[in-house]
């Protein structure tokens, strides 16, 4: 058994629990949350970070903009690109490989206009006016780059550090390292866009070779997001309570008192019951005041869906969920940020869906004092090409693009790194995905080397090859 999930409960604690029914446990855990957790058999019990003094963030939200949002249309103004609109890329900028764009393509200027926002005066395009209003809390990393130019492999690298499937994602590594602060909610939640799937599919978010306890919980659209959390049709709560007591009674009737593994199983049923009884209230957004719903754009056409997921993300974080990933984009490419055909049409639409909810999330976290301990990361698996695809679209682009971070101890109101004058290549302080991963882990107090798992003869880590902490951010 890996060290992180080793059972650490002593006989006294076991016996004291063995005489309690479900109700007693639920009550006791409400009253003595911390005490119980200290002796819990749950492998997801909260664990201290490797670097207590450096840990700024307790939880993380990854706003995954699937399909690859354009840096050129959002956070990385390129006046020269507009001047060169319609021309071939000057040879001095070097070569680039694309999925579709070929040597005949010409550069495409942007129709967006940029202006400076906030005290920091960071330039943001008119595509994201709401996010721009929070820019003093945001650190814009303009020199990001990855290794792959096709969705699936790039998505694997963004989430797992590897260009092939089969490795644990950021979220799985995070809960492997830190456990969960919540007993009634899943530790790691992915909220996919209901419009459909992404290229890399389920394995991108997964636990890879880590034990199944570190797998993500994929939320479904609607107000019953967790599979198997509802009682089956025709079964009442009272009836199920009796069945749970029966399971406990029968298990204990044939069990040695110091059997820690079986005690862990019994405990997992207590946790399941807690989830079942407490989680639905967290999913219910109707208890939120109207002005909060309005702030997230809930009830208004373009923002309703993503707004709900962002608000739910805040509610989950508030209740101790460790890692939440609300995904924007799903299904056919144009329902993602994958603007091959028409960058204007696609990005205006995608931004209209997400800008207001994201800004609301940042403001809401901040006013509740949660932003200090919640690391927020925004970005996609790559950016978009300075060259046009067709006449109005942009192709995938992994050589230089923008991500941003906020909260969780990140120093906002700054720009780090940059691309060349046409946004082709990260030239100034290039920042690979593994550097983003290292920085994320660092803010969570996790050491990239210590957070490892022996697999096939290798101590596997999220960062594979050593990454660096982006020092300006922390």
């Amino acid at each position, binding site marked *: 058994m890996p060290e992180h999930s080793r059972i650490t409960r002593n006989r006294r604690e076991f016996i004291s629990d063995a005489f309690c029914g479900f109700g007693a446990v639920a009550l006791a855990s409400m009253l003595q949350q911390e005490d119980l957790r200290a002796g819990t058999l749950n492998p997801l019990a909260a664990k201290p970070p490797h670097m207590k003094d450096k840990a700024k963030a307790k939880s993380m939200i990854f706003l995954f903009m699937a399909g690859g949002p354009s840096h050129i249309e959002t956070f990385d103004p390129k006046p020269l690109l507009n001047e060169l609109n319609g021309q071939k890329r000057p040879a001095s900028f070097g070569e680039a*490989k694309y999925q579709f764009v070929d040597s005949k393509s010409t550069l495409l200027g942007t129709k967006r206009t940029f202006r400076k926002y906030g005290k920091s005066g960071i330039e943001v395009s008119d595509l994201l006016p709401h996010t721009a209003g929070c820019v003093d809390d945001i650190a814009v990393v303009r020199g990001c780059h990855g290794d792959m130019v096709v969705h699936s492999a790039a998505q694997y690298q963004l989430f797992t550090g590897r260009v092939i499937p089969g490795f644990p994602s950021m979220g799985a590594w995070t809960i492997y390292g830190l456990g969960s602060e919540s007993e009634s909610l899943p530790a790691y939640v992915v909220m996919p866009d209901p419009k459909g799937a992404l290229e890399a599919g389920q394995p991108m978010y997964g636990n890879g070779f880590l034990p199944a306890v570190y797998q993500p919980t994929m939320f479904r659209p609607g107000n019953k997001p967790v599979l198997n959390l509802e009682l089956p049709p025709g079964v009442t709560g009272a009836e199920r309570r009796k*069945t749970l007591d029966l399971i406990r009674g029968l298990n204990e009737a044939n069990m040695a008192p110091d059997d820690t593994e079986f005690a862990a199983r019994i405990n997992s049923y207590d946790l399941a019951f807690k989830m079942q009884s407490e989680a639905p209230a967290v999913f219910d957004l109707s208890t939120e005041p109207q002005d909060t719903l309005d702030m997230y754009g809930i009830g208004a056409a373009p923002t309703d869906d993503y707004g709900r997921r962002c608000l739910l993300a805040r509610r989950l974080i508030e209740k101790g969920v460790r890692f939440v990933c609300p995904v924007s984009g799903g299904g056919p490419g144009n329902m993602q940020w994958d603007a091959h055909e028409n960058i204007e049409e696609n990005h205006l639409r995608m931004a209209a869906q997400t800008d207001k909810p994201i800004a609301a999330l940042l403001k809401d976290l901040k006013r509740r004092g949660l932003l200090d301990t919640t690391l927020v990361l925004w970005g996609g698996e790559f950016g978009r090409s300075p060259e046009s695809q067709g006449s109005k679209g942009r192709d995938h682009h992994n050589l230089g693009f923008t991500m941003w971070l906020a909260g969780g101890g990140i120093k906002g109101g700054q720009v780090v790194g940059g691309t060349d004058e046409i946004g082709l290549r990260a030239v100034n302080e290039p920042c690979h995905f593994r550097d983003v991963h290292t920085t994320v882990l660092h803010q969570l107090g996790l050491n990239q080397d210590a957070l490892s798992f022996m697999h096939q003869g290798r101590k596997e880590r999220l960062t594979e090859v050593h990454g660096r902490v982006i020092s300006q951010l922390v």
Partner: protein
Amino acid sequence: MFGKFWVVACAASALIAADSIAPLGKYTAAERRHWAFVKRTQPEVPKFSSAAHAAWVKNPVDAFILSRLAKEGLAPSPRAARATLIRRLSFDLTGLPPSPAEVAAFTADKSPGAYERLVDRLLSSPHYGERWGQHWLDLVRFAETDGFEYDTHRKDAWRYRDYVIRAFQNDKPYDRFIAEQLAGDEISPSEDETLIASGFNRLGPLRKNAGNQEVASSRNEVLTEMTNAVGSALLGVTLGCARCHDHKFDPIRHSDYYRIQAYFSGVQFNDAVRASPEEQSQWKSRAEPVEAEILKLRQSTRGKKGDELEAIRAKVEELEGKRPEPLAGLFAVALKPENRDNIHMLARGDFENKGDRVGPRPLGVLLSDDTPELPADAKRPRTELAKWISDAENPLTARVMVNRIWHHHFGRGIVATPNDFGRMGERPSHPELLDYLANEFVRSGFSVKKIHRLILMSNTYQQVSSTPATAIAGEKDPGNRLLWKFSRRRLEAEEIRDAMLAVSGKLDKRAGGPGVIVAIDQGLVNALYKPSQWAVTPDKAEHNRRSVYLIAKRNLHLPFMEVFDAPDLQVSCPRRESSTHAPQALELLNGDTANQLAEAFSERLSAEAGPDPRKQIDLAYRLAAGRQPNAGEARIALEYLKTQRLKELALAVYNLNAFLYVN
């Protein structure tokens, strides 16, 4: 020295022009001395002077185990009860619970040889191959889809799964099993069975993308998957670590990796069509018009731009969806000498970063330093590789395989890292026993079932699992590495589902055929890139077939399987995790599978035990736990049934440790 074998076998091989070739490299004596790389010993079976010890030793397995226990001051545990043994054996060998009648018969059979007959019966059960085939499928990351973005279905991959099941069922000699998988197409290119086996070489995930094709990069990925499988599944070393640079811990050089890869340089995928001429001509008449239209559209894109071009693209995509289902075929590979790649050492594994050229040659640390490469134009290169791997003198192969068998019987290998016999792996707990078993394996002509018998007939295997740790055992060996008792284990994902089906009476025992697609939560299907891929198998009876016959789809795992640690189908899985967490409880309490099968289970209980709740409870335990309920259990369950439904009791039984664990 093992290296000599290769020298003799290849003495006639000519060296290839040497200018661009990487040097062969040298291995120090220290590197060659690692325990797994040296020739197997002929260990002497320990003898015992004490009569009690001698009496416990049923076969050499026991002698090796007891000798070590005695050295540590530990004693073995008593023999488990018959009801425990039959349940243990049934799950271990078939992945299914014994029926109450089988338990009763075995418990009552006091004649000599009853246990041995049981072992033999289960070894020849048709379900043995399904259970042990699954272990192999884990190891070779078998799936019926490509993975990556399209996750295209490999409609004939199931034939490989059935091949594996048959191979274990028929106790195909392991050397032959290796040869057919690595080189079936070379050995017998016109025989379906061997061609199907060669599908082994293309089981890895396969990336395809739209737009500009990176031919060289994609080919490199394919070759990487083929090479890594040799290391993980067959040799039990972390060969993959040497793809980017020399192995950091083991004497496996960067050049070794690419020399193994060189055996695959001419391997191409081969979907050998197996359809009658009529079927083929019918298919052609349906496919040709679609293809012609696609071609016409593609040609019409010339000079088109923007929206117009996109419209044509969309139309092409639509038509591609209308292509008729491909004809039945074999999922195989073929050697295409004319398409041989030059294999170069790739710095950091990067296909654009080519270093020296290499030719086929096994792992250098196991050869004499002057062993030449195989000529690049060798007629049957993979046959040569298979010969080397399964040679009786190969120090890894037999050890690795007997260790896998041991691992699945005891929950832990003699080497606890079954895919890593290198320096970072664990050292064997019983090195002499490992060599003894490996020698027996080779001597028996690589019979897997012989090794099963040897292990299962031992007293070591028949110990109880419930022995409390004595002070000395708790201190010296709390993890039971030395086997002073049997280690209880949780059922694996497939076993749980299959056992639920079996005890409810719903199990459909039909074997073989294309992977069955069962209905699952629509939200999960919608999350597929192409939801239409999840075409639920129309015949509902098929939904109750054994889990090994359910479709293995890389981008959609059944939640039931996933929550109980089924492997992710992307990389080789030699050892499953056994985690315990709340979503497992939610799956077994609220999931559709559990509730539907609880309904069926309760109907069976009513039908077979009648209305008396005592009898119902009794039967429920005999079916699910292979024993009668104890007094406490019977009393609690009876009290429950006074007010509650039998279906909920049936559901509760699926959630009991008595059901979910093997003692």
